[in-house]
Each structure stands twice: as C-alpha cells, then as structure tokens.
C-alpha cells in the first residue's frame, strides 16, 4: 500500500467521520432509540451481571424497558459499562422469559395456574416434612437473588420448616474467600473499597482474568496505570489472558501449584527487609495447625519455600518469583485482586490466607492504596448470601446457627420459636446434592440458578434432580435445570421488582421496580412468602407486604454487627449510589476502611485501646482475638486430581467477556452470541503440535468423569500442559467434566483443576 494512498484514504474517512458527528447522531448501542425519541424515563439501578456492581440507568418507555446506559453519577463505573450490560434490555424482553407456572404431568411440563402450582408445592413439601422431617427438604439459592429474596427463603426454611439445608451458588465461588477473610482478618469482606485502585502503586492479579471477568475494575486499573506510568502490574495465572495487556510481569504456575509461590514471596519479603516489623509485632499473630506460634517459627516454616523450591513445585522460575516479591515489597502501596483462580480450589482458603499474609507482613493493609481485595463473581453474592446468611451455617446479618444467642435473636425477629432453628449447620452444596441423589433429601426449591449445568461433575447430580421433587423458580425457560423440575414457577426479572444488591466493595445499592412483571411472573420473595402461607405459616408471613418491610426487618438484624446497615434505609438508598457498610445511622456516610480510624465501629469501640497499644488498626471481627489478624502457615498441597500419564493435561475453566454464567441472559442478545457463539478449547501451540492437533479441528476432551467434543483453538494462552474451556454453553457444559472435590474448610469445589486428556474427534 503506497503512502499516497493511505493519506487519501485517511482524509476521506476523517471527512466521513466528522460528517456523522456534525449531524449529532449518537450511535451508542441501545441508546439510539432513546436519544432520538422523547418520553423515555430513566431509572437509577444496578447492573444485573457481575459483582462489580456498576450503576446503570434503565430506559423505560410506555411500560417497556427499551435501553440501558451507564450511570454517570455512580462512583463504581462513572457511567461506563461493559458490553454485556448494554444488552440487558434484551434479556428483559426475551422470548425465553417464562410467563406462567408449569407442572410436570405425565413426564411433560404443562401450563398451570399459580393456585394449582403453589398448592402442589406446599402439599408435597408438607408431606415430605411430615414423613421424613424438615431435613428432607432443602433450598438452593443464588448470588443473583436480592437480599430480600434470600431473606424470605432463610425464614421459610431455617425459621419455619426447621432445616438448615439452605445453600446458594456463592458456595461455588465465594466460600473460600469468606473462609480466608474470617480466618486471616477475623471478619468477612475486604478492608477497603474500589477507590484504593486509584491510589495503588502495584497490582497483584492472582487467579483473575480481570479484563474479562470484572471489566470495569480492569478499566479503572488500566486508566490509573496510563496516567501513572510508575504503576506496575504482576499477574499470576496459568493462562495468558486479555488482562496481560497491562502486565509488567506474568508468573505462569501449573494449575493448582501456586501456594508455594505465595510462601516464597513472603520469604523473599522478609529476607530482604520489606517486612513491617512494627505492624507485625502489634497487629499480628502467627498460627499453624497446632495453634499460635512465634515469628521465628513462621520464618522457619518459610525456609521450606525458597524461590527455588517454589520453582520446582509450581514451574515458575525462581527469578520471577523473586522479582514479583521485590516489586510487591518496593511499591509503597499494593493491591492484590483475586477471584476464582484462588477460590475454586481444594485449598482455596489456604490460597486466600497466603495472599492475606503478603499484605499483613508488609503492613500493606489499612492504608489508602493497599488492600487484599477479593473480587466477587455475582452481583449479590456478598450482599444477599454472605451478609444475608444464605448458607447452611449462617443466619442473616453475620449470625451463626451454632450460636444459641444468635438463634434466639433471629427467631425473635422472625416471630418463631427459637427451637425451630436447628443448632447444627445444614448440608453444604455438594453434600446437599449428594443427599438429593441418595434420596435423603426428597424435596428441593431452587431459586434463580441453574445447578444442572453449573455444578461440578454436574451429570452425577442429575439423578437426584430427576428422582426427587424439585421446584425451580426462574425467569427464563427452558434451562438445563428446568428439564428436571417437577414444578417451574415464573419469577419476575430485574426491573420488575425492587430490592437491594450488595457488590464486591461492601456497597449496598437499591434497584427499583420499573415495569410490571411479565405475564403471570411474580417476585421471588412473594412466591416464597405465599408458599410459606400455604404450608401453614400464615401468621409468620402475614406482614411481608412490601420489599421495604423485608429490608427493614433484615436491616434491624445488622444493628450492632460488623456489617451494620442501619443507616441504609430504602429512602436513603433510593437517593444515593449505594452505601458501604458499616453505616450505623442515617446520617453516616458509609465506611471507606474497616478496622481503623474513620470506621465508626473502630472509632467508638477500639480507637482508644489501639492508641494505647500504639496500633493503627484493630481487627475486631468475630474470629479475631485481641484485635489481631492472623498470618497462617499453610503448606503446599497438590490439587485433588494431579495430572498423570493417563490424564496428562490440566483442565481449567472460566468466563469470556461477552457471556455470563449459563447464558440464560447473555444468550438472549444476538449481538453477544455473534461475538462468541460457541464453546471451544484453548490448547497451547506446543501441546497441539505434539498431539498433531490443528487449529479448528474437532477434539474430544476426556476426564475421569466423561468426555465432550470441542473445537480446538490453538493459541498461546494456556501454559503448556494446560487446556482452557469457557463454561457458558448449554450444549457444551464443561462442568460435567470438572471434578467435585472440594475444600475441606470452605466446601468450595475445585473447578479450576482437573486432569484431562485430548484426542482428535
């Protein structure tokens, strides 16, 4: 192409571009219609997808949701959105929305009335309860349900039916982070907020493809780095991803072998003088399985993790580990961000502990720009399930079923006898679906999630879903799970209900009801309420006429807790762009950093004590003693299913930018399907050559749990010996091949590592 040619072309196009600009046509997708026509009402809300919690404006015209745009006043995203959110209105209006209840009759789901469907569920559940006890029933919810919805489920199952078999899909993604925060810092959820991003000098992205899984966070990191070239980014991931675009250093561990790297980094930090001795002395205790140890013991423990030893275990060159540690040590402030790469592991809690260690021993915590910050996958995993108590050992508002005082307090608010709430935790997710397989659980209510596709080793659990009495409340139909349902209840979708979502950064945000539910769809919280009434708990559920009543009752339970939400009334939440707890009173602005000056709990209860002891932080959470955080000595441990000669490849899974979870929502936007229409397997080029696999060829992945055919994408992304498959597609449900081994502490399954092999189809 000649120079002259380029120039002419250049002039022509720029002329064309300025012409388009001149007539003032805004070409933002989804906004076009709204901009060109009057009468569109914009409603402040929150994105329905990931845990970032971006503020959106919902465009409604004549009772129909017509477009979505970013909320410029929301500090999370400043008006920016990722491509998924733009097409949310297509999910609202999709043909796959379910408009009426359905009951399985003669093997087929047929349309029914609400009356018939709820009567059937209530009768069946009561029969089961009478014959087999409350523990023969179970609830399986979602980090996408609103806090109010999970609250209703908790009351019905734990408070009325009397079973703690209440779980939710955050068990599959956040449980290890919860375990990590509790055991290391004494309380769940991060110390700081997103605003630390713009103050950080170093980012350590461990097991997170931030660019695709948390796009707006990535954008904030990228902007910050562009403006501040001294900002450095270190990535720890067995796969090169779009996040690498900004990386200064990338460590490629073999999947499941990274624990040694964190320990080796800690060793380098201490050996080279980057440790904050004063912070260590005043704020930390060292522990191993035997209990509290001294700092010397910790140092001795680390001697087993020299960078060279870590190299042998993980495959990451010692020099790179040292480099990463030095970058971490030298930077004045550092933020570690992680997600499923650390959480979905047989030793997910340990991985979390070891990340916290790095921040604790260097004092890079509790200062602006430094934090050990877990990224959440779902929009309300933090708010509804971790805070709302949607797991088998929890009660709403950071209360525990094992504590008598907690049971009594919650039971009183619920208006049920304290003896209704069982003192023993119920079954965790995998145990619950195993019990469903075995018939120990005979009835299950599934809300807003698709376990038939998303459970690890999914096929194994289809048996129970098929054989037992399964109720699915869903906005979309069909899904893999509705295939097994005995009753399907049409749930109102986002924009058709009000409620609160709590995102990654402890921020609770209000979502308004903008349009009426489609067809006969009903709000999940009302379905549960009405089911409760039909099951005989008329009195217990009589008062819940609005979402606000539910929220206020829940809010009351958080009073005086570390996650105090008393100041977050609906009135207030409707006006502001979310509030970050603790927010004890209606005039409190919300908290930036916990456990230190500015945190209302710290200020009122611990500041004086801390001052006396010469400390800047006081870890006051339920699991911390004397206000101290814990540095855990966690050894290396192999993944549950190491690769071997039979299955020589490590299979790992993840998200793509354009799709989300099991695609019930993103699959409704042709634009997103166009961008990534099918599943595929990424194979390292060297592995591909060794197996004579060509790009685009059909291959079969085999694990000990089954086999599945994929198109090969030969690409220099996964490290040699590793293959990657995105998990969204119903016709290629890769989770069927994943292992269901789980972390003994958090009970979170090891989705991220399974032994596999590949052959040509």
């Amino acid at each position, binding site marked *: *192409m000649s120079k002259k*040619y*380029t120039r002419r*072309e250049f002039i*022509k*196009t720029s002329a*064309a*571009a300025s012409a*388009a*600009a001149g007539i003032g*046509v805004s*070409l*933002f*997708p*989804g906004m*076009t219609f709204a901009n060109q026509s009057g009468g569109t009402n914009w409603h402040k809300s929150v994105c329905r997808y990931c845990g970032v919690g971006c503020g959106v404006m919902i465009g409604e015209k004549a009772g129909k949701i017509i477009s979505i745009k*970013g909320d410029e006043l929301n500090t999370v995203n400043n*008006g*920016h*959105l*990722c*491509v998924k959110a*733009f097409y949310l209105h297509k999910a609202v209006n999709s043909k796959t929305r379910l408009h009426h209840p359905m009951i399985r009759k003669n093997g087929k789901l047929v349309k029914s009335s609400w009356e018939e469907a709820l009567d059937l569920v209530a009768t069946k559940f009561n029969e089961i309860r009478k014959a087999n006890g409350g523990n023969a029933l179970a609830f399986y919810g979602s980090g996408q349900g609103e806090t109010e919805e999970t609250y209703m489920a908790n009351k019905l199952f734990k408070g009325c039916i009397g079973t703690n078999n209440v779980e939710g899909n955050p068990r599959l993604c956040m449980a290890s982070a919860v375990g990590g925060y509790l055991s290391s810092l004494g309380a769940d959820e991060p110390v700081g907020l997103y605003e630390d991003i713009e103050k950080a000098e170093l980012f350590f992205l461990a097991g997170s493809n931030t*660019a695709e899984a948390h*796009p*707006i966070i*990535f*954008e904030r990191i*990228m*902007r910050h780095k*562009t403006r501040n070239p001294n900002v450095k980014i270190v990535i720890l991931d067995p796969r090169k991803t*779009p996040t690498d*675009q*900004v990386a200064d250093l990338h460590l490629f561990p073999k999947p499941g072998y990274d624990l040694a790297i964190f320990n080796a980094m800690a060793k380098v930090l201490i050996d080279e003088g980057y440790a904050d001795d004063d912070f260590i002395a005043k704020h930390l205790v060292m522990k191993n399985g035997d209990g509290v140890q001294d700092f010397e013991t910790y140092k001795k423990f680390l001697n087993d993790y020299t960078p060279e030893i870590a190299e042998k275990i993980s495959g990451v060159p010692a020099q790179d580990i040292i480099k990463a540690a030095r970058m971490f040590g030298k930077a004045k402030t550092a933020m570690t961000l992680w997600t499923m790469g650390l959480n979905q592991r047989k030793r997910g809690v340990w991985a979390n502990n070891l990340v916290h260690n790095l921040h604790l021993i260097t004092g890079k915590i509790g200062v602006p720009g430094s934090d050990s910050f877990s990224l959440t996958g779902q929009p309300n995993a933090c708010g509804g399930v971790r805070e709302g108590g949607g797991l088998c050992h929890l009660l709403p508002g950071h209360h525990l079923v094992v504590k008598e005082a907690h049971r009594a307090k919650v039971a009183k608010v619920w208006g049920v006898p304290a003896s209704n709430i069982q003192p023993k935790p119920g079954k965790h997710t995998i145990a619950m679906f195993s019990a469903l397989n075995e018939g120990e659980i005979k009835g299950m209510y599934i809300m807003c999630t698709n376990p038939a596709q998303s459970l690890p080793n999914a096929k194994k659990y289809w048996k129970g879903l098929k054989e037992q009495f399964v109720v699915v409340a869903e906005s979309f139909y069909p899904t893999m799970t509705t295939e097994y349902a005995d009753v399907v209840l049409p749930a109102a979708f986002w924009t058709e209900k009000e409620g609160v979502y709590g995102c990654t950064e402890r921020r609770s945000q209000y979502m308004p009801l903008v349009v009426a539910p489609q067809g006969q769809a009903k709000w999940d919280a009302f379905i549960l309420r009405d089911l409760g009434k039909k099951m005989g708990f008329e009195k217990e559920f009589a008062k819940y006429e609005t979402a606000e009543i539910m929220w206020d009752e829940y809010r009351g339970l958080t009073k005086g807790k570390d996650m105090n939400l008393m100041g977050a009334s609906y009135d207030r939440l409707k006006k502001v762009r979310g509030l970050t707890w603790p927010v004890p009173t209606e005039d409190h602005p919300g908290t930036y950093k916990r456990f230190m000056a500015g945190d209302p709990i710290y200020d009122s209860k611990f500041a004086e004590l801390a001052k006396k002891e010469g400390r800047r932080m006081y870890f006051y959470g339920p699991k911390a003693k004397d206000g101290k955080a814990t540095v855990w000595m966690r050894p290396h441990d192999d993944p549950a299913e190491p690769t071997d000669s039979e299955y020589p490849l490590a299979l790992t899974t993840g998200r*793509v*930018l*354009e799709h989300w979870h099991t695609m019930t929502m993103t699959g409704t*936007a*042709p*634009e*997103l*399907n*166009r*961008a*990534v*229409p*099918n599943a*595929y397997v990424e194979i390292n*080029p*060297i592995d*591909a*050559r060794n197996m004579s696999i*060509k*790009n*685009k060829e059909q291959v079969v992945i085999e694990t000990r749990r089954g086999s599945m055919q994929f*198109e090969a*994408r*030969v*690409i*220099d992304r996964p490290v040699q010996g590793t293959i990657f498959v995105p998990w969204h597609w119903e016709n290629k449900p890769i989770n069927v091949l994943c292992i269901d081994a789980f972390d003994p502490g958090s009970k979170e399954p090891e989705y991220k590592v399974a032994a596999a092999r590949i052959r040509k189809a």
Partner: protein
Amino acid sequence: MNNSISRREFFSSFVANARGSFASEKTEKQTTQNVVFPPGAQNYLENCNQCNDCISVCPHEAIRVFHGDDEQFAGYPVIEPRTQACYFCEDFPCIESCDTGALVKTKNIKLGLAEIIENNCLPYNGHICRSCVNNCPFPEQAIYCDAEGKPVVNENICNGCGVCVQVCPSDKIGIRIKFMEEKICLSQVS
C-alpha cells in the same frame, strides 16, 4: 507464540465459530461500503464475468452475489464479512475456480484493511468491549487494544479477513473493511 504454529494454520480460525443464525438481529442492507471482493481480486469489476463459480466452491458460504442497490456492484460475487468473514483457505478454491483472471493467486493476499468506525465502536465511546481483538485470527494481533482499551488496527498485519466485522457486538458496527484497490476505494467511499 511466533512460529509455534504456522500463521496460516492459525488463521483458519474463529470464522466458523462466529457463524450462527442471528435471526432476531436486524441485518444491514448490502452496500458498496460493507462488502469486499473475494481473495486475489484483480481489476475485478472488469475481469469478472459473473459466472459465480467462486460462489459455488466456497466451502464456507462466504462469497455471495451482491444484492444491494448499487448498480456498479450488481451481480458480482462479493464477501460481506458481517454475514460471513473469509476463511483464507489454505488452497483458495475460489481463486482456483476462476479462469477469467478476476481472482489471481498472489503472494500476499489482502481483501482490504480493517478500519475502526470511532463513532460506533464502544471503547471509543468510553465503554468496554474487545470482541474484535479477542477474535482476531492473527497471533501477532492485526488489531489490538491500546493503553486505554481502544482497538487499533496494525495495517502491516491486517489482511481484511473481516472476522472483526463479523463478531463486533455493537449494534452500530464499530469496524469495517475498506478496499485496498484505489479505484474501488474511491467508489466505495464516495
């Protein structure tokens, strides 16, 4: 990645993936702006006699008869990347099938060059998208994200295959393939 696999091998990528029925998506009318000529086009409008052989041999149905309003292109086999991008088959059956000299095998075949339409492209308007970059079949990335996350075309690598156009999820397409041939370029833009 460099030489781990041949570029060509890699190139026969994602296109098939990206095929699908986009029934509910509004399709754009064909114009001289959104189509390109098949691989190896030489003085195409003069040489091609519209025998349609290339159309019948294309294994991926990428070549179709132009059916837009523009008379200049009427009846000619063209590729409309939004519907189906070119695979750049190893053996170019389309060129093999052509005996008029309209399609000729040369060393470095390019259909055109990708060009971002900044008014439409999401990242140029402050949002997050990288579908074109993620799907670019060139391991060396004929299109990449700059420091602000905006896609930028590397004209030295890009061969105008059109995968980026096919996958772009913006409802106003954020990218197009502009012709290489100067003459056509003029008619395309004017």
